[in-house]
């Protein structure tokens, strides 16, 4: 038990990365607000970045720039940081794309809540079933609540 605790204290960045990761996953899976889901994704990915960068760090190491005056210097491993640059780029593009989808959904439904959107869609599907067809645009668009904005949805 003591050894385990010692290991945990020595490797504290990994511990925090795991906690952050779990927070992120829980946010994505349990929150119905689309923005919160997106924040969860970002927290989760940051956790993975921390994990990688902590793995590349060496205590007492210096920047990985060759210094001939100090031959005994220990350099940190730059590769994980370089990899995480790629990871950050991916994360940014995911965020941008998700935001554009949220805008489109908000213009269409007038809300950014996954549960409400699902409700509206289901009631629309029911109405469609009664009419004998379901391949059609959402009836919420004609109920006037956000009708002025909804008509622009085709141009997104």
């Amino acid at each position, binding site marked *: 038990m003591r050894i385990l605790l010692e290991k945990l204290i020595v490797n504290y960045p990994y511990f925090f990365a795991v906690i952050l990761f779990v927070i992120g996953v829980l946010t994505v899976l349990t929150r119905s607000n689309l923005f919160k889901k997106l924040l969860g994704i970002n927290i989760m990915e940051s956790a993975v970045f921390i*994990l990688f960068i902590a793995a590349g760090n060496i205590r007492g190491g210096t920047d990985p720039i060759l210094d001939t005056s100090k031959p005994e210097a220990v350099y940190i491993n730059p590769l994980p940081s370089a990899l995480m640059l790629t990871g950050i780029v*991916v994360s940014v593009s995911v965020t941008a794309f998700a935001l554009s989808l949220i805008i489109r959904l908000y213009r269409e439904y007038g809300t950014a809540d996954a549960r409400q959107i699902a409700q509206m869609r289901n009631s629309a599907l029911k109405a469609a079933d009664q009419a004998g067809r379901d391949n059609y645009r959402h009836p919420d668009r004609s109920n006037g609540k956000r009708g002025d904005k909804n008509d622009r949805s*085709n141009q997104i």
Partner: protein
Amino acid sequence: MGNGVTKMTEAIKFNLPVFVVIAPLFIAIVLPVFARRIRLAEGMVIFVGVLGLAGALFLAHIVLDRNSGTWIYQMGGWPAPWGIELTVGNLAASFLLVVMGVSLPVSLFAVGNLTHEVGGKQRTARFYTLFLLLVGALAGMALTNDIFNTYVLVEVATLSCCGLVSSRRHPRAAEAAFTYLMLATLGSALVLCGIGFIYTITGHLNMGFASQALNEIWQTKRHVVWMAMSLVFVGFAVKSALFPLHVWLPDAHSSAPSPASAILSGLAIKGYMICLLKFFYSVFGPGLIKEFAMDRLLVLAGMIAIIAGSVMAIPQDDLKRRLAFSTVGQAGYIFLGFGLMNKDGLAGALFYLASHAVIKSTLFLSAGAMISATKKRKISELAGVGRRMPVTMAAFTAASLGLIGIPLFSGFIGKWYLITGSIEAGSFLPTVVIIAGSVLCATYLFPVIRVAWFESAPKEPQKAAAQETGDAAVQRETAEVQEGPVQHGQLKDPGILQKLALVLLTVAIIVLGTVPGPLLELAKRAAAELLVLR
């Protein structure tokens, strides 16, 4: 002059593995420039498809010819621990052939047929950009031998998949794309964590070196290896829709435009499966899979997926949704084969992967043709379509027979090898499940065939329905349908290119089922290669 040409062909031949990946990606980036000249853009897409298929055939020929050993291509000439390697082995060549062989007919089908589903020339050009990005990423997944490179290609594929889903002008599509994006990003974060653990304990990103190091040190780092394996497994299982993690798939695949559904169901999830296979067999190795009981987990998950996916497909009345649930079930066969850990099972899984890619794209494309002609998505409303659209429905029927596993169609050979593999593994439950899956598959596909061929078409059902309900929205919708270009009375097969695409895919199903020769040979050799204990 002649000397120069030979030098050039030599250079192209030498760099072919890179060209196969780079060409679609490059054209994808150039394509938006030609958005206003959509015919030119479409021509370029098909040109790249033909080039890619030629390249894949050539690489497969080289691999088959070489008999043993893989062609390792070093990016930029850097040797292995520093540079990124592409390997052209049996596995890569067979999957590359599947990717190129399916994406060409799909792009042929998309040409000229897409504008009404996507809306506008600009959006059509963007669709092709995403399509080519996906094809390039899948080709890269087949070839790469570097685990971080795999992650990057997986992300490229994920983003373009989500883009393809959301390219349809329908709120449903945006919603499905958002769910897909969230879960797929969750999956890739898990995979990235797994990669991080592998790199932390081995210090290598190259699959060969990482595998060597893992097999030397795994006893001392047992928990880390176990953790990395589980993370990679769950991550790729989310992305390739293994049963309990499939929740995003039915919405995403059924609300995408039809060519996109075809390539998403046919190829995209297969790409992630190939990545999982590479991680499990080329990085961890068969010894570690057995040690951590991952083989039994794969077989169990596969069996559950076959039954659950097929059962869920039966009550669906929406044609594309039924096909999407069927994909969940069929993915189970491939996972089951991955877990059997013997030559026949693995070869069967690889062949089944190829056969399902061809069959499911045919099904989605013919379903798309029917839906865009009739403007109806429900199976019960497709009565009498078969007689009006014989080519489309014939392709659908052939593909259904292939999916069920009737002899002479490609699904049969894959299932045959899976069954012999599971008997060899000594467990009879998978055999029973494979056969039960075929029966369930017939249960959900034969009604479509029966309704479309043997029931007579109803007479003007929509007008009456709209008049009964006073709902304004519905009336407007019905009006839109009646204004549409195709009336029910003028139902006919789609254009010549679409017919060509369907015929090509149907021929591929029958050819794979009667003379599986080269592809099966590649799959068998790949299986033997992957199972070598290190």
